[in-house]
């Protein structure tokens, strides 16, 4: 499987309860301690990169879509937002908090807040980085109690869809024996 094509976090709204566990997991995973109690004891601020929204009666979490030709990366004047082969992320040390990335993100996935960067208080942009430095993968996916969140690779999704289509075709053939034998 080609893992070079960047993965993204997919949400299944039918499974999402709107419990906000993913938000907590996200905020905790990006602290030095890596957990909420440790962060609170250290006086560290907690910021989530994802957000649970409600659309009519359905709840689901939203986060960065990891655009390949990302507008935020293109607009960033200092190169703080960058794209690797598989994900986009922000280097908060370079961020000047001009909010241009917020203005151009079609998914509202970036916000600016005051935080401590390299020992100094400053305003900087926050966005989902797929927890690239976390051995267990994205914290939100791991924490979701109903497995509504999953890390998907586009090639994997396409592969599954093709498999499903092929199976459907075989099933149709099976149900219409005379059609198969007439070939």
């Amino acid at each position, binding site marked *: 499987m080609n893992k070079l094509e960047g993965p993204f976090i997919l949400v299944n709204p039918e499974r999402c309860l709107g419990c906000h566990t993913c938000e907590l997991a996200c905020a905790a995973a990006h602290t030095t301690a890596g957990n909420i109690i440790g962060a609170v004891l250290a006086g560290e601020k907690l910021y989530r990169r994802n957000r649970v*929204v409600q659309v009519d009666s359905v709840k689901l979490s*939203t986060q960065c*879509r990891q655009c390949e030709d990302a*507008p935020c990366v293109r607009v960033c004047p*200092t190169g703080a937002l960058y794209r690797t082969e598989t994900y986009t992320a922000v280097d908060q040390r370079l961020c*000047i908090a001009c909010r*241009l990335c917020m203005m151009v993100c079609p998914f509202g*996935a970036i916000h600016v807040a005051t935080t401590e960067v390299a020992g100094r208080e400053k305003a900087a942009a926050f966005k989902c980085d797929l927890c690239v430095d976390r051995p267990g993968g994205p914290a939100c996916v791991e924490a979701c109690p109903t497995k509504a969140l999953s890390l998907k690779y586009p090639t994997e*999704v396409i592969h599954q869809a093709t498999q499903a289509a092929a199976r459907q075709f075989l099933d149709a053939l099976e149900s219409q024996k005379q059609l198969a034998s007439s070939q």
Partner: protein
Amino acid sequence: MINLTVNGQPVTVPDGTTVLQAVRAAGVELPTLCYHEGLAPYGACRLCMVVITAPRHALVASCAYPVEEGMVVETNVPEAATARHLALEFLLSRCPQSDVIREMAAKEGITTSRFGAPPPERADELCVLCGLCVRVCREAIGAAAISFIGRGMERRVGTPFDVQSDACIGCGACAEICPTGAIKMEDQGNKRILHTWHTTVELHTCPQCGRFFVPEPMSFLKEMFPEIEDLWALCPECRQQRAARQWIEQRATSPV
């Protein structure tokens, strides 16, 4: 990679690194006001002065000095400390009301300045003329709405003729980057007021929730990014809502 020594401790940093970056990589603290990693070095505040004893002896502003192979950097020798303390005393004399400056000075053991207090009309001065706001506006944003005005004692930052700036895009990066909080900016209804620049920028109203969000002068982004044209004035929360709705509808029509 370049090998150098900071306070007797060996450090290896990539080529093109500044002495300040190498010093911080070695875990040594140096105060700075005019330094920002996202902008070009400027060397205005003179707080990061260090002494280099090899390959030549020099007292340098570490933020603007590139590393060299075999360089020996000393941050705590009296020559360097005296230079930093002098800069701090000047700053303390200019901005005695600034908590940032007072704290920075206290850390280096400086609580009073030999150069007296500012004249009464400038008693509450917070600007240290570090130039970060001017540089971020020109270098990063490209608007160049503010610049240094005047010389010597009269030097300060402002818009041309101290009137409403047509070049300001209302991003607020100047206020965010200011190390001493000298730039006053506030959002009042659909107006973003940059008090220090005598400039008011209109904010678009989010058509869904009515919050004020996008500054009007940023409309040029719409032409640069055609993909956001129909959601331009939406605030981030409403954009999330919109994206979520689209996803639900898409799933209903073509389930993956």
